[in-house]
């Protein structure tokens, strides 16, 4: 079966749960920005939960199915099949020739489409996720374009036993945990970062999110000897303006790290739209 891209949306890529085997070689983790919605999408159609899905960024685009199929769209956006509004976060039956239209609306940045079976994609370091900077993985290593045709292998793989994903309500406060240079930051910065609400900047993508109205004093030197970093890390360059590292961020960095977003909250943080407010709280593990 095939899916034809009639309109690719703003930035639609194939993503799965990412790769960790290449972290020591500079290969970023990658994978879905909101991992639990990716799992949920697969779960709804009966796929193994780490199968590749389409990740839509804000405007999702338009897609035509050439065969009857079962799909699911997860997220807080909206979708139409032909001209009828359809429900998100549930199993949908599509018929040959149906056209799907997806939009994220104002309640989130990323929505996911799963199709029963397996979306065929290129593998890079054990994952089918698209990693655009190296033009590897996913569909030709890039965002989808108008006219692209995705192939679906309709056989369902082995499901891994226990599924528990649902659409949770979004957390209003994002938990952050100490990162390696926490103690090098002045007390002032440590309290400031949880006191105010900050705005997610327009400069935010799969590599990292900048925050507006958040200027910290920073550490004495403003840099560190390059060291291994993980997604969710809040690094603070000498400008004092923090950058939160996201799924496609480099595996190593040279800026001091004040904190890191709790892994269970990283998806909700990723869902923040440019201009949306975010509030952090320190959390002890």
């Amino acid at each position: 079966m095939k899916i034809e891209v009639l309109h690719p949306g703003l930035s639609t890529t194939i993503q799965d749960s990412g790769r960790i085997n290449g972290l020591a070689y500079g290969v970023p983790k990658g994978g879905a920005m909101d991992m639990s919605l990716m799992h949920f999408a697969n779960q709804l159609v009966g796929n193994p939960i780490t199968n590749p899905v389409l990740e839509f960024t804000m405007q999702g685009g338009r897609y035509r199915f050439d065969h009857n199929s079962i799909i699911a769209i997860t997220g807080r956006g909206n979708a139409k099949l032909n001209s009828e509004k359809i429900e998100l976060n549930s199993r949908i039956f599509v018929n040959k020739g149906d056209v799907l239209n997806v939009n994220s609306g104002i309640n989130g940045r990323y929505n996911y489409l799963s199709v029963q079976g397996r979306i065929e994609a290129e593998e890079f370091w054990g994952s089918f996720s698209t990693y655009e900077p190296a033009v590897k993985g996913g569909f030709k290593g890039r965002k989808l374009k108008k006219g692209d045709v995705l192939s679906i292998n309709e056989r369902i793989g082995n499901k891994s036993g226990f599924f528990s994903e649902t659409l949770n309500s979004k957390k209003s406060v994002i938990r952050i945990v100490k990162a390696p240079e926490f103690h090098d930051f002045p007390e002032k910065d440590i309290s400031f970062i949880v006191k105010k609400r900050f705005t997610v900047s327009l400069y935010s993508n799969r590599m990292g999110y900048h925050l507006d109205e958040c200027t910290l004093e920073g550490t004495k030197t403003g840099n560190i000897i390059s060291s291994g970093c993980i997604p969710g890390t809040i690094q603070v360059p000498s400008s004092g303006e923090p950058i939160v590292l996201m799924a496609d961020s480099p595996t190593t960095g040279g800026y001091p790290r004040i904190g890191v977003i709790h892994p269970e909250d990283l998806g909700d943080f990723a869902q923040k739209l440019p201009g949306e407010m975010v509030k952090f709280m320190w959390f002890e593990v």
Partner: protein
Amino acid sequence: MRFEVKPYGADAVLLSFGDEISLAIHNQVKQLYSELRNYAKKGIRAVIPGYCTVTILFEPKMVSLNEVVELSKNIVDNNKVQDEKKYKVRIPVCYDKQFALDWEVICDYTGLKWEEVVELHCCNEYLVYMLGFVPGFLYLGGLNEQIRIPRKSSPRLKIPKGAVGLADNQTGVYPLETPGGWQLIGNAPVDLIGVNSAVVEMGDYLEFFPITKKQHASYSKQIERILVNEN
């Protein structure tokens, strides 16, 4: 030498052997990194070596932070006879002025002739301290002091794959097209990262050797990683 434990979120920890770039620290990092990679089944999901640090990602359902630290202490304390295997990789570089976009700036800054710069860059052995930044990027130590030059004041928006550059005490190869501020001296027509495996490991030694424009245009060999001694 022992490490300092720096917690890193809910499922990672960073162990730091110090705050300077040195061979002694590098060897400690290398030993711990190489050993920890054997513990995937015990909950060590991934290990990222840095110049002086080891970042460990673990699965908290399988192993606790304390257990990860204890395991690492045991590895460091039982420091078996250091792995003396030495691997070397040789990277072909075309230093033709077509690729060496910054040759004039470098000659002006260093007071050397272009041939001398090339000679100093390739008649040298470098140590791969770590990989990072983008897939296959090597952080090399050992650049000759005579060809050290600050990075460009404003970065280029596009640097082609394989570009070889200088920046302060570093030299390196851009494994893929990215923006970058290094002073460019040549181009290496090789892949530094595979689709499922690495070409160069941290701890390897590296040499650059000059090739002509003609050789560059038709170069199709893979990088070889050669064991140069074994005790």
